[in-house]
Structure formats: C-alpha cells, structure tokens
C-alpha cells in the first residue's frame, strides 16, 4: 500500500503547492511553517517527494505544450490536405526523434522530464492513431492500415535508434 501512498502524496503536493496562492499571506506563512516542520520531521522522504512533484509538474507542462502542437499540426493537415492520419504520423515520428535525441540526458534530469516525458509524450499519441486505424478497418482501407501499423512502427523505431546514436547514447 506504500505505492498508493506515494502516488497520493504526489497528488496532494501538487494540489498543496498550488493552493497557497489563493490564501491570505498569514495562512501562507502558517502553511510554510508547517511545510518546514514536515521537512525536518520526514527528512529525505519529503526531499524525494519534491523531486517527484517537480517531475509531475514538468511532465504536465510539457504534455500541455506537446498536445497543443499536435492539435495544430493535425488540424492543419486535416483542413489543407484532408488527411488527419498523416498529421498523426508526422507528430509521432517527430516525437520519436526527440526522445532519441533526449536519451543523452540522465534519467533524473528535469530537462529530460520536460522534453521526453512531457513534450514528446504529449506530442505523440496512440489513441488518435488507434482511432484512425479503427476508421480504416471499418472502411477496409488496407494500404493505410499497413502504413500506420507496421510501417509507422518500423519508421519510428529506425528514427529513434538513429537519433539515439546521433546523441551518443548506446545503452
């Protein structure tokens, strides 16, 4: 049950960290004092929690930015070329290149959390791709299914490995 504790704690910190902005300054000071007491009492557990909180917040910000870029790209391709599926393919491939280039960062690096976990994760999508392929299955467009399932997978994997090699990470 410790796992749920950590997840709930991360959520609570997320809400708590945003909460004080709405409080009057005296309440804010009381919350700060409480936080410091907690920090002293809990030692490194809270320090770890702050790292987790930062990771979640950075991933959320990156996810928001990535999602907006994805929506714009897909919308433009849908209106200009009438092919939303190509937009989904383009953002997924771009995200795989970004993740490959980001492999050079250490796992706990905040920049990696923002770019790899947040931005690339929000930029790429499985749900839109799955919905496009589901539409292709219903319309029996086999060529498009071949492009988007094995084709996109092979392309994305090749681009990811090439970008990772370029970034100098061979792990």
């Amino acid at each position, binding site marked *: 049950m410790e796992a749920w504790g950590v997840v709930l704690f991360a959520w609570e910190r997320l809400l708590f960290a945003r909460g004080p902005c709405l409080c009057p300054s005296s309440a804010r000071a009381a919350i700060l004092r409480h936080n410091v007491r907690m920090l002293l009492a809990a030692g490194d557990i809270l320090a770890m929690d702050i790292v987790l909180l930062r990771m979640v917040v950075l991933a959320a910000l990156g996810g928001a930015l990535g999602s907006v870029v994805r929506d714009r790209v897909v919308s433009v391709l849908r209106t200009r070329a009438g092919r939303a599926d190509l937009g989904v393919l383009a953002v997924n491939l771009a995200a795989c290149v970004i993740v490959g280039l980001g492999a050079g960062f250490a796992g706990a690096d905040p920049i990696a959390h923002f770019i790899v976990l947040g931005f690339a994760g929000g930029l790429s999508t499985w749900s839109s791709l799955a*919905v496009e392929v589901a539409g292709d299955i219903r319309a029996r467009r086999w060529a498009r299914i071949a492009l988007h399932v094995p084709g996109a997978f092979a392309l994305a994997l090749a681009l990811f490995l090439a970008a990772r090699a370029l970034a100098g990470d061979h792990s």
Partner: protein
Amino acid sequence: MTVLRRTMFVAAGGASGATARVLLATLLPMAVDRPHWSIAALLLVNLSGSLMAGFLRGVLEAKQQRGGARVGVGDGGGEWLDAFLIVGFCGGYTSYSGFIAMVPAGSALIAAATLCLCPLVALLGMLLGVRLSGGYPARPASL
C-alpha cells in the same frame, strides 16, 4: 469554437493526460520497486486511452449523425468533447514515443500486443460508443 479556446481545452486536457500517464506508467512502478513493470504499465495506459478515445469518437459520431442542432448551441457539445477529452486528455495520456523508446529494452511480445491491440480496442470502443448513444439507424435514438 475559436482557435484560442480550442488551444486552451487541448492544453488542459494534455496536461491532465500527461500527469495521469506519468503517475501510472512511471511513478507507480518506481514506487513498488519494479521499474521494469513500466513497459506493461504503458501498454495498459495505451490500451485504456485508445479504448476511451474510440468510445468518445463513437459518441461524437452518433451525435453528428443525429444532428448536432439538438445540443442547442451551434458548435457546442461535441467541440469540447473533441478538444478536451479526445485530442487533449487521451492524446496526452497515451504515448507513441514512450512505447517506441521502450521497444529496444522491452519484450517483443508487449510491442506486438501494443501494435495489434490498440487499434482493435479503439474499434471496439468506437462501435460501443456509437451503439450506446443510439447512432445506428437500426437503433432509434429514443431507446
């Protein structure tokens, strides 16, 4: 819906989706001291996100079939469903790049399962969404 309003909906959905993904696929396996479970966790995230997006798209399709005018506002109803939930939340929640990055380290079985099951689950969700919202002519909307 204006571009600005749509962008705000997509950003809010993307942020919450990415948070949910990080909590389930990154922090939860870390918290139970089994980091290698994150590959299976991401499979579950992608499957549930695909199912949800398919279902919502089906609901939207049924709504459009019945005529969006029923909702009252011209472009209301379906637009925020598409921007916030389908494009924002489900799109930010599922991740193709995370899946590809895990393929070299993970098992081929999970990669194959993700590739085959995600579209099928989305199709299932779509048919379910259309059916449950009474979109097919065979099933009247009043039922």
